[in-house]
């Protein structure tokens, strides 16, 4: 390794270095890919785990929150397969093409690969890497230390390509599931290449056992060509002690329509970082996020949105319901480049605090380098409205149920952004399940 790098400090940082040294030879990919990995790992080592002095990680101090580095999860065995079979139950009963990623490895045997629409191709990332395809480099998140760690260590995932003009009827569901009782680490890299004027709904769920402090570092890179349409819905539903770090990178072409929706209710420490580039003109992009947190959960959603091309519209609505001693973090930075005239960008973050110890940190930022734009942002943080609660109670609705109705109303507004009714209903059910847990 590079000699000038600054010495690693925490036990976790040392652990990651040991891990990389131990596994790098066995990770898929030839010499070029290995060089990309080494390069990425050097970038990680140079920065170390981000702490609160790093602006992009201000509220999520990984140096404090990540105590150790886990060993990579072993390839899933028969027991793991059995445990994984019913995963993704949030969308049970819906006709989705399920692709299972178990303990970080794509399992074709458990996946629904029959009758693929023509123009749709699905492969394991490990397969693409073994064929020396350059699927690892990240364009926008490249310097981020957590993303760099992913590039260095990602072993598998799914690579999906949809040819131009193909409108895929059946939504694809990436079912990420962690099994086993020994806490391990999973680094996955997935990719979606959406051809021009193609259309797809991509659903993603993440889950794992409670009480196990396993670590997930998942990255997804999306390329949306001109006039393509993508709905991406991600549910972070990890086990109660899990660490979940996800990096999403999407480049959005001209006239494309991209809708990102996130629902986070699981995990102990969650970071969803989203890097979007509005690269073409006349694009519409939206990001909606609903976080439902309790106990001592910490969930951070960080968006970096770059308007490069002119005449595009973006809408972001982030909502968090925070109970007990949980913390919701939202950071959003919208940059409007000099060429991105007539950009219309709006960002709103709202947090509903259900207890005195609950915390919400909101940091929206606008950086505008064009003069003919409409941009705005706002944040609100507050408790449930006592007057409204009283009105409901005065009609006979018990306190907890009244609160549940008001929380539903609050979160419902974001869920309504999901276009497909069946998915919307499934998400509502997930919300009800969370509310049920409060009773």
């Amino acid at each position: 390794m590079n000699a000038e790098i600054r010495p690693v400090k925490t036990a976790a940082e040392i652990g990651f270095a040991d891990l990389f040294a131990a596994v790098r030879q066995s990770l898929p990919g030839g010499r070029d890919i290995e060089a990309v990995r080494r390069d990425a790992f050097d970038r990680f080592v140079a920065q170390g785990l981000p702490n609160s002095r790093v602006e992009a990680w201000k509220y999520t101090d990984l140096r404090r929150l990540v105590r150790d580095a886990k060993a990579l999860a072993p390839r899933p065995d028969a027991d793991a397969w059995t445990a994984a079979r019913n995963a993704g139950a949030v969308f049970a009963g819906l006709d989705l093409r399920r692709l299972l990623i178990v303990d970080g490895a794509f399992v074709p045997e458990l996946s629904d690969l029959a009758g693929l629409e023509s123009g749709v191709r699905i492969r394991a990332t490990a397969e693409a890497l073994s064929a020396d395809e350059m699927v690892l480099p990240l364009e926008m998140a490249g310097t981020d230390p957590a993303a760099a760690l992913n590039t260095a260590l990602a072993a598998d995932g799914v690579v999906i390509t949809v040819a131009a003009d193909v409108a895929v009827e059946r939504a694809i569901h990436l079912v990420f599931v962690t099994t086993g009782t020994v806490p391990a680490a999973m680094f996955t890299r997935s990719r979606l290449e959406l051809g021009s004027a193609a259309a797809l709904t991509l659903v993603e769920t993440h889950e794992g056992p409670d009480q196990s402090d396993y670590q997930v570092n998942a990255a997804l890179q999306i390329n949306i060509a001109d006039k393509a349409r993508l709905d991406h819905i991600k549910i972070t539903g990890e086990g109660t002690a899990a660490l979940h770090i996800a990096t999403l990178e999407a480049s959005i072409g001209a006239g494309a329509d991209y809708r990102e929706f996130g629902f986070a209710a699981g995990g102990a420490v969650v970071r969803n970082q989203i890097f979007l580039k509005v690269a073409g003109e006349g694009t519409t992009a939206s990001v909606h996020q609903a976080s439902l947190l309790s106990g001592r959960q910490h969930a951070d959603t960080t968006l970096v949105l770059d308007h490069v091309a002119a005449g595009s519209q973006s809408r972001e609505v982030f909502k968090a319901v925070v109970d007990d001693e949980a913390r919701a973090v939202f950071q959003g930075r919208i940059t409007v480049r000099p060429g991105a005239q007539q950009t219309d960008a709006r960002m709103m973050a709202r947090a509903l605090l259900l207890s005195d110890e609950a915390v919400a940190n909101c940091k929206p930022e606008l950086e505008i380098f064009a003069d003919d734009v409409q941009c705005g942002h706002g944040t609100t943080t507050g408790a449930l409205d006592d007057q409204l609660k009283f009105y409901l109670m005065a009609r006979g609705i018990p306190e907890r149920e009244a609160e549940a109705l008001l929380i539903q109303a609050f979160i419902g507004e974001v869920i309504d952004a999901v276009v497909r009714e069946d998915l919307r209903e499934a998400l509502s059910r997930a919300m009800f399940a969370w509310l049920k847990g409060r009773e």
Partner: protein
Amino acid sequence: MTALLEIRGLKAEIDGRQILNGLDLTVNKGEIHAIMGPNGAGKSTLSYVLSGKPGYEITGGEVLFNGEDLLAMDPDERAAKGLFLAFQYPLEIPGVATLTFLRTALNAQRRKRGEEELSSPDVLKRVRELAKQLNIDPEMLKRPLNVGFSGGEKKRNETLQMALLEPKLCVLDETDSGLDIDALRIVADGVNRLRASDRGMIVITHYQRLLDYIVPDVVHVLSAGRIVKTGGKELALELEATGYAQYQNEAA
């Protein structure tokens, strides 16, 4: 026979300011009581204290509802026992569909009383019937509760809730304000349909006109936090002519 509602020497304050100053009022089953009185006298305060709105401190007196200590109950419990307040200013609740709200309220009350819950279609059927009687557009039921409703629509919606929940004691706080002449008649008819020998009503109003439709058994004047005069329905006509000046002096 126990009175439906018995208020004795009720004193209440909000934010350190005493509003109710030893108020006495007894309502028996089957009776309609009208309460009139100047602005700021404490009429809404009385209705809020009865329904259990937080923020009020009871500094004296007691309230028995069918012989039970009303002030010891939570607002939802009071509602399930049959107390209903039609708000002077109904609140808007974005994101909660009117019908969902009605169903949730009705079933919560039924559950608390140990009655079986009604299915969604059954609730819908009842609500539609009542909406028709009250001349409420059924489309409004899909909209978020009271959001963007006109003043009169909100009042009609309160009446609809009351008719659906079939309370034992109805407290109507200026349900007539904001209603046009036709709506006033429709709402009054709705209220009159609820008249029953086992149900009592307190109708708070500023206008004699409402009492032409909903004819009270008793009329009270509430001034400076107390009932200062009680009479028959002719008292309302008298007040129309004389105003409250004499009672305000009396209370002071």
